[in-house]
């Protein structure tokens, strides 16, 4: 299968998803081409020249930054020119801005939020989640010779190693960008703690033992750039206000990273965090329920781990 990866970049840097897409492509392809759509694609090409990339296609456009009309037209022409069997795009805000439109216009196979891929027979099988990530599904693409897949970030490791890709250029004609980038703004950190909007939660539970120990974890969260949240027993003890509580009777959270230190994982707690992007759990009890939903786990003493983390930040 030939695979076309659409590189994603922002402010002059290729985004990590691009290298993940290249790793995903390796599951399928004999031939992987990476398209770099930019005002100065040559400046970015090096960043995607990693092991497994056969060809880097530079597509020069007028825009520095992502604009969806530009990408849609460019990729449409790339597909016409290269006839890939599979097109891989990140399941990112940029990807959401043009990839479904492209798939709909071309009437090709399509699935988004894909986290696993394989070839089966001559066909393609992808895995994705349904119903709030509570069930997974294998999806197939009957009747489609070409498929566009949007890949869930962090599902594949970033591709590495020196590449030896052939460099190519493709001229495209882009007419009219009707949704134009004008500015970037950083979202100001708000004073109020809202654990539901935090990207990184450091969550502690009964394992902290004493109220006095909480300060240590507040300090650690600060250092790590995390927001501190807690499981219910600490709210029950009156050590933390309810606004910090994760769980069925507290807040439902979905941060990118949920680091649970000393939380055993009562059902009510799991209900409030199990759809977090990446869950890391540290607990002394290897049977703790939290490990059932965690992506990474460590059977270790939370104080020892916290102490080591202090040193690293």
């Amino acid at each position, binding site marked *: 299968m030939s695979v076309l990866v659409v590189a994603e970049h922002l402010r002059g840097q290729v985004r990590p998803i691009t290298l993940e897409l290249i790793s995903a492509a390796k599951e399928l392809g004999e031939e992987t081409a990476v398209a770099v759509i930019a005002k100065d694609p040559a400046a970015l090409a090096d960043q995607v020249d990693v092991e497994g990339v056969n060809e880097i296609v530079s597509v020069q456009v007028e825009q520095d930054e992502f604009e969806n009309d530009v990408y849609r037209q460019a990729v449409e022409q790339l597909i016409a020119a290269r006839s890939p069997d599979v097109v891989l795009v990140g399941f990112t805000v940029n990807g959401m*801005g043009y990839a479904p439109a492209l798939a709909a216009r071309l009437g090709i196979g399509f699935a988004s939020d894909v986290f696993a891929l394989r070839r089966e027979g001559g066909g393609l099988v992808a895995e994705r*989640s349904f*119903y709030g990530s509570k069930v*997974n599904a294998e999806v197939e693409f009957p009747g489609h010779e070409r498929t566009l897949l949007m890949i869930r970030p962090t599902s594949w490791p970033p591709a590495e190693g020196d590449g030896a890709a052939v460099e190519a250029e493709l001229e495209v004609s882009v007419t009219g960008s009707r949704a134009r980038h004008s500015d970037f703004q950083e979202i100001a950190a708000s004073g109020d703690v809202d654990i539901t909007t935090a990207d990184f939660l450091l969550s502690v539970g009964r394992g902290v033992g004493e109220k006095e120990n909480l300060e240590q974890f507040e300090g650690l969260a600060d250092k790590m750039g995390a927001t501190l949240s807690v499981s219910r027993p600490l709210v029950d003890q009156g050590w933390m206000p309810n606004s910090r509580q994760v769980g069925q009777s507290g807040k439902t959270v979905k941060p*990118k990273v949920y680091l649970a230190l000393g939380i055993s994982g009562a059902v009510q707690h799991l209900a409030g965090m199990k759809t977090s992007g990446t869950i890391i759990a540290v607990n002394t009890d290897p049977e703790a329920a939290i490990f059932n939903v965690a992506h990474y786990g460590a059977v*270790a003493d939370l104080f020892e781990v916290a102490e*080591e983390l202090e040193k*690293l930040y």
Partner: protein
Amino acid sequence: MKVLVCVKQVAVLGDEVEFTDDERDVDPDYLDFALNEWDSYATEEALRLVEAAGSGEVVVVSVGDEDMEDGMRRCLAMGADRGIRVEAEGRLDPIQVARALAEVVQSESPDLVFAGVQSSDSVQAATGNALAGLLDLPSVAVVTKIDLGDGKATVNRELEGGLVDVVEVDTPAVITIQTGINEPRYATLRAIKQAEEKEIDMRQAGDLGEPGSRVRKMFVPPKGEGAEMLDGGAAEVAQRIKEIVQEKTA
């Protein structure tokens, strides 16, 4: 000012699950239904724009069977003026839904089309953008702020990592709305009752074509799937945690 809002009554799975005999979907007995969270924000945003404009209407559109109307009634209770349901049975993929919606948009010629960023049951984040593609309309995805101008709008697109992309988009356009853009209003009981009387126009779908994909098999994720145990002492564990955090919050 006319805003068309694409809304969906989504299925919500509880803690227990059984599958249908063909294993292609969850047994409906295990599903509850509710208006898609993103769509209530989209409806609210539409209501605010029309209210600010002083006149106009908000039309909610769904594709599906009669059960879809519960979600539409919710939007009508919030203040949407009328509804259009395109009759369709069974599971549709987002591209088929977009095809059904495209006919409605063409017949209604709205100033703006809103959709939620994604539905909580299918999580494709595709319908709104696919609709824009089919109609060749300008579009912006994952929007957290809209300032309406003349023939264009300035919108904020929420990128990963706390960065906002300010975009100028020509209108009419299709915009997918992110949660948090506003605080959706609640419907009073009176509004809920009045919504029962509002018009929902039922239309038959044309040829919706082939789906982009088809579910072959659904299954419960294996327990602890992907749970990689970090070995070594506290120092090694801490080091790995730091690496993972850096990688995943990037």
